[in-house]
């Protein structure tokens, strides 16, 4: 039977998760994946990876601080955040996240502090304006053998972040676009893409080391290949009907030209940096890095804002994909602004370029760190 339906009266539902949420998921994924990329050098002692690990640690710390700020801003009652820890509802992935996020940030900061502690100590012994600050930061010592343990703990917490952020969204059956088993893997893979993109851009700004650029681009090629592969699997199982959840997800947006444009745009955002990084891994860092950042951010924007633009019971689409106004713009600009500020502060005050794997016992006369201030 042929049925035509025209909705004459219906309600439009606004997005409950605002662009702050996109920023949170974007930044926390970059932070956790960047930390995982920092661990081989700092915990396993692979000194060949040190230049990459230094950038990764800086990215992990700065984004790891900004991400919870964006998360808090997305709460409509931010001053009730303490209730997460008093009324933990164990059936909610968000409740678990409330414990995982501060654990991760605390372990991450402790790990970064431990890595930098010898340099802090050395800078505190010199005669200069801010020596007192670095004596405070060093906590009267330079030993950092415990950094490996902290790194392992932070790494486990980072895995917890990737697990909870993906699952928290994927379990929402009411939103077909979110309710797909592949989503947590896609969040993780695009997180690596975003982290490598940020590292590539920072490498161009701070290092300009062709070998490091090439190494990062090779990593990006691999991460983009995984993202592309997951995308192809997603589309294949959705079209074939092998996975009803994916089929429903595709059906929920199929037929809308805007979603076809988004799909094409997303594919280009993967293919273009993939080809560039594969063919010319040197001297393409700016382009591949910026497109990679864009791809990781756009994936989350599309999933969160686009997902909320799909009505659960009504017809058509809502405007959530293109929000404007204070919450729309300030959520994005504000978090990026804070991140850039932290990045400037980190590169200015911290001896990030001298970070080395921790050692059990330090020599009495440490190597002189490069001092920025």
């Amino acid at each position, binding site marked *: 039977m042929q049925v035509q*339906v025209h909705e004459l009266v219906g*309600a*439009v539902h606004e997005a409950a998760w605002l662009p702050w949420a996109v920023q949170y998921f974007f930044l926390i994924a970059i932070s956790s994946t960047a930390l995982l990329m920092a661990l081989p050098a700092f915990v396993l002692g692979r000194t060949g990876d040190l230049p990459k690990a230094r950038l990764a640690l800086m990215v992990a710390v700065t984004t790891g601080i900004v991400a919870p700020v964006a998360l808090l801003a997305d709460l409509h009652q931010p001053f009730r955040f303490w*209730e997460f820890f008093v009324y933990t509802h164990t059936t909610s992935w968000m409740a678990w*996240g409330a414990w995982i996020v501060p654990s991760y940030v605390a372990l991450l900061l402790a790990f970064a502090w431990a890595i930098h502690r010898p340099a802090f100590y050395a800078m505190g012994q010199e005669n200069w304006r801010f020596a007192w600050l670095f004596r405070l930061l060093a906590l009267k010592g330079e030993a950092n053998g415990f950094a490996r343990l902290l790194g392992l703990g932070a790494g486990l917490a980072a895995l917890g972040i990737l697990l909870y952020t993906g699952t928290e969204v994927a379990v929402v059956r009411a939103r077909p676009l979110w309710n797909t088993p592949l989503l947590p893997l896609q969040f993780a893979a695009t997180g690596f893409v975003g982290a490598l993109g940020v590292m590539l851009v920072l490498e161009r700004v701070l290092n300009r080391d062709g070998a490091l650029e090439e190494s990062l681009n090779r990593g990006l090629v691999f991460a983009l290949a995984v993202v592309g592969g997951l995308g192809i699997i997603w589309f294949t199982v959705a079209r074939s009907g092998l996975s009803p959840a994916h089929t429903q997800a595709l059906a929920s947006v199929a*037929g809308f030209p805007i979603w076809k444009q988004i799909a094409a745009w997303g594919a280009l955002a993967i293919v273009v940096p993939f080809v560039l990084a594969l063919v010319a891994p040197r001297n393409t860092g700016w382009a591949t890095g910026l497109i990679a950042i864009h791809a990781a951010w756009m994936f989350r924007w599309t999933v969160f804002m686009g997902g909320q633009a799909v009505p*659960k*019971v009504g017809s058509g689409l809502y*405007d959530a994909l293109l929000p404007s106004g204070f919450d729309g713009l300030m959520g994005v600009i504000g978090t990026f602004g804070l991140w850039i500020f932290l990045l400037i502060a980190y590169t200015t005050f911290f001896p990030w370029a001298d970070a080395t794997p921790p050692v059990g016992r330090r020599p009495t006369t440490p190597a002189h760190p490069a001092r920025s201030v």
Partner: protein
Amino acid sequence: MDTTRRGFLGAIGKVTIGAAASVAGASQVAEAAQTDTPTAVPHWGMVVDLRKCIGCQACTVACIMENDVPQDAFRTHVSVYELVKDGQDPAMVMLPRLCNHCDDPPCLPVCPVEATFKIDSGEVLVDASKCVGCGYCVQACPYDARFINHETQVADKCTFCFHRTQAGLLPACVETCVGGARNFGDLNDPESEVSKMLAHNEVSVLRPEMHTNPNVYYIGLDDVLDGRVAGEAAYHSEMADSVSSHEEGL
């Protein structure tokens, strides 16, 4: 005062014709409220007879007035559709929507602070003093029945007018329903009007594939309207402007 009001409603119920269905429900509400034995805990439910709904939105307005719902949201409203089947004359179809007070509510397990809860009489409620406004329950509700109230900054939804049923009154939307389409009562009581309606009519629920066991039932619900409605939307967003209709398929 409650007793007087109940008595008043009970007496009115015997003489009023226009609001017969509503007042019949009210006397059941009053009886259930008066009974304090543990075995008599009611299980509130609603049966919406779509054959009687005229889409007047009196329920929508009554709910807004009763519950101080902000201007940009609804706890209940009536969706109106035009259905054309096999090229026949178009038919106007109304569909009142509200929280389904599900027996397996997906909004409940996701709440990180246990602000959403279900009470013995079946209502799914929100403790506004506890809600952090995270919006997770809004995402989890398959009926788009929840929203963030921008005046209170917490999750908001239909409560089956808990404050009224506690006082032996009907929910405002039922009380005001012009055609008697909305019927409210105790699903545990086989003698209640709603139980009889369920027993004697073919009823449907919205989004049965979600397995939420809703307590809002519909008489005369067309299959094409029980889920996400595939068709031309009343509201044309900027992104959907180029789409004449959504076919909900691949």
